[in-house]
């Protein structure tokens, strides 16, 4: 660990999220999807890669209820989970 005498060291710059803030789900409209996702994590040693369908479903729930700005799921990192896409895969 560095010593405390490091004036002039860069400080951590918190950055706002790319797509802004999630509105609060005051009525728990997507709570079931959250519970499914959390159960998946607990059943899979908290390995995110094994629960991506569940996280996609949670975000879809939010989008359907105006709790998240609609966004193509391919742009949210779910391209590989989308069916029937035959066009060439772009990287983003």
């Amino acid at each position, binding site marked *: 660990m560095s010593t405390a005498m490091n004036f002039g060291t860069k*400080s*951590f710059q918190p950055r706002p*999220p790319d797509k802004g803030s*999630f509105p*609060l789900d005051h009525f728990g409209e997507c*709570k079931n999807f959250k519970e499914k996702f959390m159960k998946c994590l607990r059943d899979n040693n*908290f*390995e995110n890669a094994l629960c*991506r369908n569940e996280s996609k479903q949670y975000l879809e729930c939010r989008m359907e209820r105006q709790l998240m700005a609609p966004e193509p799921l391919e742009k949210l990192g779910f391209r590989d989970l989308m069916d029937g896409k035959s066009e060439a895969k772009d990287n983003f």
Partner: protein
Amino acid sequence: MIPVKDRIIKVTFNADVHASLQWNFRPQQTEIYVVPGETALAFYKAKNPTDKPVIGISTYNVVPFEAGQYFNKIQCFCFEEQRLNPQEEVDMPVFFYIDPEFAEDPRMVNVDLITLSYTFFEAKEGHKLPVPGYN
């Protein structure tokens, strides 16, 4: 964005509230394992146990410091005021990814643990949100 599947990173979660904020605030998972380039979802939970509405606002921190530049939040609950009514409890999601360039940075070679910390403050008029770090 292509996941770097051979580079597993453990992300752990901290939750704090500033002394004047009476919310109960905690992460809903202690850890999650991700790889750079793979989007991930995690949850916090907040409850207002008082009998008055309370507005909070949060900031976050990432350690180790050098990994913070690769930590990208697509969407979360920070930097905007969040109002909880009396006795209300809500889930607070964070949707994020670690930039694939993390795996190319020689300084990150020994980094396999990243800790994300959120701190909630009470949002009051005229209250200046303390931003971590030196100004």
